């Protein structure tokens, strides 16, 4: 690093630290790259310096505008650095080496685009039922919900992965192994070895809101949870209003009525207020090993948070980083003209992978797509 003076190195380091504080995923290695990049360009040419630093430090185009603003304030002719950055993320200030890579910023963009697809009606046979809002559901629809839960469970369990394993009877002949075996018999192939794709195992954790504001939907969603719990073994179900309860075992009952009975013994705060953030924190503290990269976490709630929204944001951030996917189902999202403006929903949105409606069967049918990793 011959040509780059100590001053410049220091200035570059400060610049990187600032970018990191703004949420750019930079580590110590990137600072080094930035200095090396400066070493390879013409330092008196400001445009050279800008392009070099941008190439080394901006890792996605969305970060480019922020970079440009900060570059101007840092390198634009000695003007003092403004303390008020243009974009502030509340959690960005905590800055430690090595944590730079943690993805603070979330992309809700994809899921929002996908939302448009939800307008597509379900296949004709199920259409009449599918478009009926859960709020107006009668007794007979239980069977339809059960069938749907089975379909979802089947898709969850039978997803072939990318890796192969040897097997007696598989989809492909494993030439590599077969030839190795053939060596013993002088190149004569006596038996074929097959291989098949390893199944990807997904686990499902459902956190369902059963507070007062969800009353209209709770009954049918519970039926759905019950059906899912009994169709698919790798699902853990929790319900919450002001407190969180694990109901996996309660739901595993021979009949829906038994399950309901178990539930009402176990859960005391049906239809109370909602403390989503607190409930999620309880979940994280009490069952820390339940969520990993192979886990899809589904939060089922309308987002009417009466507790501390900051707690909710923090809990969702942790969940999002640990889980393979974080899905939020909101029954209200299905109603025309609904906008997720409640405080709770606003806090939640940046942390979600998928934000989708859950007010009728058709929307639950779509859910299957988001559940397989």
């Amino acid at each position, binding site marked *: 690093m011959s040509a780059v003076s100590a001053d410049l190195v220091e200035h570059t380091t400060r610049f990187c630290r600032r970018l990191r504080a703004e949420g750019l995923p930079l580590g110590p290695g990137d600072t080094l790259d930035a200095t090396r990049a400066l070493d390879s360009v013409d330092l008196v040419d400001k445009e050279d310096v800008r392009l070099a630093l941008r190439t080394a430090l901006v890792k996605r*185009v969305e970060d480019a505008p922020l970079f440009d603003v900060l570059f101007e304030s840092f390198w634009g002719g000695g003007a003092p650095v403004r303390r008020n950055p243009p974009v502030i993320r509340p959690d960005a200030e905590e800055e430690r080496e090595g944590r730079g890579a943690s993805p603070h910023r979330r992309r809700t963009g994809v899921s929002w685009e996908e939302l448009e697809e939800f307008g597509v009606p379900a296949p004709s046979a199920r259409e009449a039922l599918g478009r009926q809002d859960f709020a107006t559901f009668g007794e007979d629809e239980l069977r339809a919900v059960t069938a749907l839960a089975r379909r979802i469970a089947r898709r969850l369990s039978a997803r072939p992965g990318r890796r192969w394993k040897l097997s007696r009877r598989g989809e492909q002949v494993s030439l590599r192994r077969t030839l190795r075996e053939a060596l013993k018999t002088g190149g004569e192939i006596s038996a074929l070895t097959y291989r098949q794709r390893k199944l990807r195992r997904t686990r499902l954790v459902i956190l369902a809101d059963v507070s007062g504001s969800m009353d209209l939907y709770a009954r049918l969603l519970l039926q759905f949870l019950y059906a899912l719990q009994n169709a698919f073994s790798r699902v853990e179900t929790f319900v919450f209003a002001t407190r969180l309860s694990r109901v996996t075992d309660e739901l595993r009952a021979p009949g829906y009525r038994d399950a309901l009975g178990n539930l009402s013994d176990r859960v005391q705060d049906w239809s109370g207020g909602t403390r989503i953030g607190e409930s999620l924190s309880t979940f994280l503290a009490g069952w820390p090993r339940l969520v990993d990269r192979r886990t899809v976490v589904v939060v089922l709630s309308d987002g009417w948070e009466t507790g501390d929204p900051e707690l909710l944001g923090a809990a969702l951030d942790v969940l999002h980083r640990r889980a393979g996917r974080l899905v939020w189902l909101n029954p209200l999202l299905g109603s025309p003209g609904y906008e997720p403006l409640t405080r709770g929903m606003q806090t939640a949105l940046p942390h979600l992978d998928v934000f989708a409606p859950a007010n009728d069967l058709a929307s639950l049918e779509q859910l299957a797509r988001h559940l397989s990793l």
Partner: protein
Amino acid sequence: MREEIQRIQQAMEREGYVTDRAVATAVHLSTALGKPLLVEGHPGVGKTEIAKVLAVMQQADLIRLQCYEGLDATTSLYEWNYPKQLLHIRLQQDGTSVAEREADIFSERFLLKRPLLAAIAHQGRPPVLLIDEVDRADEEFEAFLLEVLSDFQVTIPEVGTVRAAARPSVVLTSNRARDLSDALRRRCLYLWIDYPSLEKELRIVRTRIPGIDERLAREVTAFIHSLRRLKLAKVPGVAESLDWAQALVALHATQLDEELVRETLGCFLKDEEDLRTVSARLDAGELAALSSPLA
């Protein structure tokens, strides 16, 4: 501007790749720092072209790995040449032991080098490795790629470890079909290529299609630029401009007229809905407005 960057820009232009300072700087830094270059941008803005031009400039071989869903180590790294192994075993019916025969057929002669291994084991001048549309491969492959890109060495159980004598220049491209992991991004230098400005695109058309009538070139680029402002499903890229201009030249056109545009819509619109949208515009007599180079 640093001399090397200027030289790169000139060399790229010589190879018919119209470029700007940002691209030249990124290519220069990628070489100087020995880091892979991740190029993102809309389809058809010339991402892949960078690697090709780079290979020509460095007089190096271009090794290309086209990514797709389900791409795995046997198609990207190496595979044994089974038919050849089989034949060899059958031909060699003497009394050699199983161990000897095994060592024989699992030697380098029977190894099929897929692009990644080919780039690592390449002899002579280090090649340019193009990993195209990396966003199409699944996340597991991305993790595997990270491993290869950090060490440039591969261990084949039967042969041993193959190490790159000199690191190849690596260019990765992505259309952003899926967001790439931060880990992969951090391993690379980053370049975003936007749609070119009107002047730059005009220069591209002139450079790539030397015989084109000046007026036609202007109208074509202006028309495509107008289209990019419409809400189309498949926005035409530079590649589409070039295809269209090429087609028009083949039809001996010197300027756009409505009939000509209708006949050649297929050159730059690849979606039925888009075809209808643009046809409606033409029906409304908007050709002149669309093909005049206003902002």
